C-alpha cells in the first residue's frame, strides 16, 4: 500500500466514471428487451446492498486492502491464495475492458489499424498513470469527469432538439417481469454494478472514512440513473430490434442526430466517451492488481510493478478471444456466473460472515 490519500469527492467521481465507462457504450441488459432500463435500476438498487457488504468488510479492517484482510480472516495460507486469485481476477477484468475498448475503436473509427497497436497505445497511458499512483488517478478522474458531464449534457440536448425521441418505442412497458429479474441476476448486477468490488482496494486511501457510506450510495444511484436514462434514450430513438442488432447502440443514436442540416455526424463525442471511460476502467483495475501484488509479495515500491503488469494486461487482452463475438459470449454467458458471481458476491459474503464471527468472539 502506498502512502496516499483521496478525498470523498474523488472517490465519488472514481466510482461513477469506473462504472459508467464501457457500460455506457455497449447494449446493457438487452435480454430484458424494452424493459432493460428497469433491469438496470433494479440492479443498481441491489448493488447498494453489495456495497454495504464491502463497506462492512472495510469497517472491520479500515487500514487494510482486500488482499490483506483475506489473510486475517481465513488464515495465512488460504487467505494468500484467495488474495492471489483476486489479483488475477482484476488483471483479467482489466484485459477484458482493454479488449473491448480496442475493438470498439477499431470497428468504426480505425478499421485498418491492428488491434494490438490501439491497445498498446492505451496501455502505455495506463501504465504511466498507475506508475504515478492513486492520487494521480483520482485527480485525472476529476478532470475527465467534467468533460464527461459536458459531453453528456451536450448530447442529451442535441438528441432532444433533433426530435428523435419517440416515447412509444418504450411501450408496452413491464411486459415480462420474470425476464427483467432474470436479466438482473444473470448479467446486469455483475456488469457494471458488481464491479465496485475493486474499490475494496481503494477504500483504505479515503481520508474521511465516515462519509464513505453516503458517497458510495450516491455514486451507485447516480450511475444507475445515468445508465437507465441512456438506455431509455437509446430505446426511444432506435427501438429495441435495432439495439439488439447494434454492437454500440449509443453510437447509432449519436449518428442519427441531425440538427438544422449542419450539426450531424457527431461520432467524435462517442470516441471521447469511449477513450475516457476505457482509460479509466483499465487504470483502476490495473492499479488494484498492482497494489494488491505489491502488498501480497511485500514489494516496497508498488509503482515498479506498473510496467510488467501493464504489459501482462496488454498480452492477456490479445489472447482471451479470437474474435469479438467470442469475447461478448464469454462476457455474457460464462464470465458473470462462473467468475463474477463468486468473486463479487459469494466470496465477500463468506468473508464477511467469518469476520463477523471472529470479531464477536473477541468481545
Amino acid at each position, binding site marked *: 500500500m502506498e502512502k496516499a490519500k483521496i478525498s470523498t469527492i474523488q472517490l465519488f467521481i472514481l466510482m461513477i466514471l469506473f462504472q459508467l465507462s464501457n457500460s455506457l457504450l455497449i447494449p446493457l441488459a438487452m435480454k430484458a428487451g424494452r424493459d432493460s432500463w428497469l433491469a438496470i435500476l433494479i440492479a443498481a438498487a441491489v448493488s447498494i446492498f453489495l456495497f454495504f457488504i464491502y463497506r462492512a468488510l472495510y469497517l472491520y479492517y479500515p487500514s487494510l486492502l482486500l488482499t490483506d484482510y483475506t489473510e486475517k480472516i481465513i488464515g495465512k495460507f488460504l487467505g494468500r491464495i484467495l488474495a492471489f486469485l483476486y489479483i488475477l481476477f482484476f488483471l483479467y477484468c482489466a484485459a477484458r475492458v482493454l479488449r473491448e475498448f480496442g475493438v470498439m475503436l477499431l*470497428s*468504426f473509427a*480505425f*478499421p*485498418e*489499424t491492428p488491434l494490438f*497497436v490501439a491497445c498498446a*497505445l492505451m496501455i502505455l497511458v495506463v501504465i504511466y498513470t498507475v506508475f504515478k499512483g492513486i492520487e494521480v488517478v483520482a485527480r485525472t478522474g476529476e478532470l475527465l469527469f467534467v468533460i464527461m458531464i459536458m459531453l453528456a449534457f451536450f448530447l442529451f440536448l442535441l438528441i432532444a432538439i433533433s426530435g428523435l425521441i419517440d416515447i*412509444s418505442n418504450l*411501450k*408496452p412497458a413491464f*411486459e415480462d417481469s420474470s425476464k427483467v429479474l432474470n436479466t438482473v441476476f444473470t448479467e446486469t448486477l455483475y456488469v457494471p454494478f458488481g464491479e465496485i468490488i475493486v474499490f475494496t482496494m481503494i477504500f483504505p486511501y479515503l481520508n474521511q472514512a465516515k462519509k464513505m457510506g453516503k458517497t458510495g450510495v450516491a455514486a451507485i444511484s447516480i450511475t444507475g440513473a445515468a445508465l437507465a436514462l441512456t438506455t431509455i434514450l437509446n430505446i426511444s430513438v*432506435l*427501438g429495441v*430490434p*435495432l439495439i439488439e*442488432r447494434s454492437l454500440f447502440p449509443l453510437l*447509432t443514436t449519436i*449518428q*442519427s442526430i*441531425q440538427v438544422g442540416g449542419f450539426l*450531424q*455526424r457527431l461520432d467524435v463525442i462517442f470516441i471521447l466517451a469511449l477513450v475516457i471511460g476505457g482509460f479509466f476502467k483499465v487504470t483502476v483495475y490495473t492499479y488494484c492488481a498492482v497494489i494488491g501484488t505489491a502488498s501480497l509479495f511485500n514489494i516496497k515500491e508498488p509503482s515498479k510493478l506498473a510496467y510488467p503488469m501493464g504489459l501482462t494486461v496488454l498480452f492477456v487482452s490479445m489472447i482471451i478471444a479470437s474474435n469479438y463475438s467470442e469475447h461478448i459470449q464469454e462476457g455474457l454467458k460464462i464470465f458473470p456466473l462462473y467468475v463474477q458471481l463468486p468473486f463479487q458476491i459469494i466470496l465477500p459474503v463468506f468473508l464477511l460472515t467469518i469476520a463477523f464471527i471472529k470479531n464477536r468472539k473477541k468481545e
Partner: protein
Amino acid sequence: MNRKWIIPFFMAIYLPLLSGCWSSHELKDLAIVSAYALDKNEDGTYVGTFQLINPMNVPGALQGGASGQNPSIATYTATGGNPLEVSDNASTKVSRDLYFAHTSLLVISEELAREEGLATILDAMERGLEFRTTTKIVISRDMKAGDFVQVLTAIDQVPAEKAIKSLEFTEKLYGENVATDLQKFIKAAVLKGKEPLVSGFTVEGDIEKAKTMEQLQSSEGEATIEVNGIGVFKEGKLMNWIEGDKNEGTLWVLDQIQQAPVNIDWDDKKAAISYKVVRQKTNVEAQTKDEKPVISVHIRAEGDLRVIEVPVNVTDPHVIFRIEQALQQKIKDEAEAAIHEAQKTKTDIFGFGEKLHQSDPDSWKKLEPKWQDVYFPALDVDVTVEAFIRRTGMRNNPYLFNLNKKSD
C-alpha cells in the same frame, strides 16, 4: 545520467504515433459518392451505378472555378453478386477510393424492389463502416436506377442533392411524400405490426439527352426529376404505389403532415377554397372491444385560408364554422380512402398493429400471426377530424363579394 535521456528518447519514439495517420486517406485519393443506384441484371447479378462528385465543377467549391463547363458529377457502372462486390468492381474503374460516408441517396429500381425486395441489399449498407443509416432510400419508377442518377440537374448541381431536396420539400410543404432513410426503413420492416413506405421518383423527358450538358444549356432542360408516388412494402418487397389524394390521406394518418394545402368545393365550384395547414397532430389509439381490435384516429389541424374564389362572408364566424366542417369532411374522406386502400392490399403501413402491441400486449400476442392478412383488413377504424381556421390571410372578405353586390 541515463534518466536524463530517457524522457527525450520516449518523446522521440512517440512522435510518429502522434500524427495518427495509420490508415489515412488523402482527400485527393477519395472519390466522394453522392448517390448509389442498384439495378438487377438479367443473369441475377446487381448492377450498381455510382454518382461521384466532380469537385472541380461544383460551383462554390472553388470560387470562380471551371463551373458550368463540365458536368459536376461523373458516373461509373459495375456489376457484382452483392452491393459490396459491386463497389469493389467499380473501384477498379475509378482512379480513386470510393468513399461512402457522404452518400445521401440510395436509388433502387422498381424491378429490383418488386422482385427481390430490399431485405437482402440493406445489410451491406447497415453493417458497413462508411455508409450512414441516415441515407435516404428512393425508388426509380419504370426506369433503371442507373439512368436516374445520371440525369443532370440545373439549380442544385449535384443531382443527389436535388432529389433529396425535392423529397424533403414535397414532404414538408405539400404532404405528398415520405422521406425514408435506411434506419427508418429497417425499423419498420422488422416490426410485425408495421410496414415501410418509400417515395418513388420518375424522370419526365428525354433521359439520354438529360445525361449530357445539353440538359443544363436550356432553361427548360431535356428532362426533369420528379417525386412521384409512395411505394408500399410488404415483407421487404415493393407491393404497390399510393398516388394522388391517397398520398395526402396516408400522411395525415401517419402524422407526417407539416404543411399541406387542402382544397374544398363550395357552391358547385371545384377547389373554390384553399386551406393551408400550418400545424397538425394525429393521435392513433388502439383498443380491444369484445376481443376485437378497434382503432381510432384523431386528426387535428390548424391553418389559414389562402384562396377564396367564391363570394363567402368569412367575417361571419358561422360561415367559418361551415367551412371548417367542409374541411373536416374532406380530410376525413382522404384519410379513410387511404386506410381502405391499405386494407385492400393487406399491408399495415400505418403501424396500427404496433399501436395495439403497445396498448394491449396480451391480445396482440393472439392477433399477431394473422394480423396483416385477417385482422388488419377487417379492422374498424374510426376517423375523427378537427380542423381550425385561425386566420384568413391579409384580407377578410374576398373582392368577389363586392363585385357580386354591385350586380344585386
